[in-house]
Every structure is written in C-alpha cells, then in structure tokens.
C-alpha cells in the first residue's frame, strides 16, 4: 500500500490533535491512504496524556501568561512541553493490519523509523521500551499509540533542543523543586538533537523524512478538504474544557 507523506505543517495544539483524529477517521473509512505527517506546534503547547489530570500536571495560569496552549491527547502517556523551535512531531496513521498485532512490537517498528532518521543525522539511538528512544542512554524521543476500529495512530516527538527551565515553568513542578539540582537531574535523563550533534532544524527534518520513507512505497500528499473540514469540527472538542479538564 502506498503511504501518503504530509510534509511539515504548523498548527495550534487543538488543530494538531484534530487533524490526527480526522485522518484516523478517513483511514478507517478507506478514503485516506496510510499517512505519515510531520508537524510543529504554533504557538508552543503542552499536551497531556489521555489519563492525566490537566490541573495536576499543568500550570494552567502560567500557560495562559506565556500564550502556551494546553491540550489533552487521545493517547495515553505523559505530559509533554512542545516548544515551537525545540521539537519535531510526527504521526503515523494506518490500518492496524500493516503492523504487528502486539502494541509493544508496533511501537518498536515505528520507533525503528525514528532511529533510522536519527542515524541518518549521525545520532546513534536505540529503542527503550515501552515507548521511548534514547541516545547515549538519555531519552530523545517519546511516543504514544492508540488503536481505533482497526486503525493504528502513533504520534511522538523528537527533541531538537532542550530548555528545562521553560519546560518546568509550564508543567506543575513545585517551586522548591525547580532547583539547579532538579534541572541537572532532567539533563542527566533527557537529551536532544543539538546536544548530540550540531545541525539545523531543516536538516533534522530532512533526515527524519528519509528515515520514515526508507523501504516504503510513498508519495507526497496533502490533507483533503474533507479531512480539514472534519478537523475544524473536532477542534471544538479538543479546545473545550469538557475534554481538557475532564480529569
């Protein structure tokens, strides 16, 4: 089956999540090809996992002050700060039948594409179950997956640069914990592309694109009008307090 590659786009957090779900619905109904999309978050955003509490995880007032949008994902996993300049995000949306039945195994398949991309960029990375990728023993990519009606959706981030202070300012970490020691502790566990190897954001994207496309039959494509219309509808849900604050 030929993959559709939707090149890098910028949207706000609500629209990014809405587009992922709209594609999932269109793949499910058979009108969209299996799709890989790349995107950035504009403005910068925080996403929380499906089962997290927004108020527990996110400093909502600080987000408002900084113009950072906060959204609940359809997928599980943890809270992530998506800095506009600091990360590259991808989604893979395709029939489940194209992947191993086991969720853990399918994480490994898709994470393998990211590892290839990082390898292309000269960064030696490896899969760290359940859903992470590490470079030099530190996390460089986090990923989350859901499956709905026979369609697999996995999205995740590749950290390009790291600003721990900024990250802590929007996530709910108590003031006393935002110490130099704690920042150092995060820097000991998390890494980013720029720490591993100097390269432009565009170079990272180009290498990731190659990593994802290698060995596949693919074509460049755009989102259809129907997908965009549906995403605009779904945006209402993703931007609602009923969704974002339901836990």
């Amino acid at each position, binding site marked *: 089956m030929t993959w559709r590659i939707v090149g890098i786009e910028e949207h706000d957090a609500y629209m990014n999540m809405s587009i992922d779900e709209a594609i999932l619905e269109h793949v499910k109904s058979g009108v969209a090809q299996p799709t890989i999309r790349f995107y950035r978050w504009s403005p910068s955003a925080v996403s929380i*996992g*499906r*089962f*997290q*509490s927004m108020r*527990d995880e996110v400093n909502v007032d600080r987000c408002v002050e900084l113009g950072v949008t906060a959204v609940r994902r*359809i*997928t*599980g*996993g*943890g*809270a992530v700060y998506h800095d506009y300049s600091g990360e590259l995000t991808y989604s893979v949306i395709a029939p489940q039948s194209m992947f191993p039945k086991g*969720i*853990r195994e399918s994480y490994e398949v898709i994470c393998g594409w990211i590892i290839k991309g990082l390898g292309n960029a000269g960064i030696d990375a490896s899969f760290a179950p*359940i*859903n992470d990728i590490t470079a030099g023993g530190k996390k460089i990519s986090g990923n*989350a*997956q*859901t*499956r*709905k009606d026979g369609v697999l959706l996995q999205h995740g981030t590749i950290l390009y640069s790291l600003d721990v202070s900024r990250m802590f300012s929007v996530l709910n970490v108590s003031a006393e914990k935002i110490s130099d020691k704690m920042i150092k502790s995060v820097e000991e566990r998390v890494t980013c592309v720029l720490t591993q190897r100097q390269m432009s954001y565009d170079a990272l994207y180009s290498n990731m694109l190659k990593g994802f496309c290698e060995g596949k039959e693919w074509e460049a494509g755009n989102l259809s009008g129907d997908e965009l219309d549906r995403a605009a509808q779904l945006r209402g849900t993703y931007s609602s307090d009923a969704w974002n604050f339901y*836990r």
Partner: protein
Amino acid sequence: MDGIYKLKVHGGKLVIVKIGYSDRIERIQILGDFFIHPEESLGLIEASLVGLPARSTREKLSGAVREVAEMEGIEMIGITPDAIAEAALLAMA
C-alpha cells in the same frame, strides 16, 4: 474520607489513585501516564472497584480489575491490576 496515592509501577508508568470511601469504595479515579487499550475502558476498570469493601484484600481488588480486563479484552501497558489495587489500598491507609 478521601485519599490519594502515587505509585511508580516497577518497569512501568506512574499510577495515581484518588479515592473516596467510607466502609466501601464510593468513588475512584485512576490517573497517570500509562496506556490502556481501548482508552474508554478505564471507566469500566474504575467502576469494577466502586462498592467493594474499603478493607478488601489486595487480591480482591486486583481480581476485580483483572476480571473486567479479561471480560472486555482490555490491554494495560505500564500499569497492572496489582498496581491499581496496591495504590487504592495505600490511598485508603
């Protein structure tokens, strides 16, 4: 009474249980960075614990979760029935 407990699952994710109870579990919310497939089934897991005696054994609570998980074909990643039971009991301790 209300209780809360955060438990890091060995080799897994963080599980947070918020619980309201008297002699029985009256309400429970399971939060964290784990994965449950399908996602909507977390409500079934929570519901399986409501009404059980607050002094239940860990086996009783984890058994209730395991039973609903098996019946509904729920897959849990980074979280286990035992971890939920443990966190619930510690939230009521």
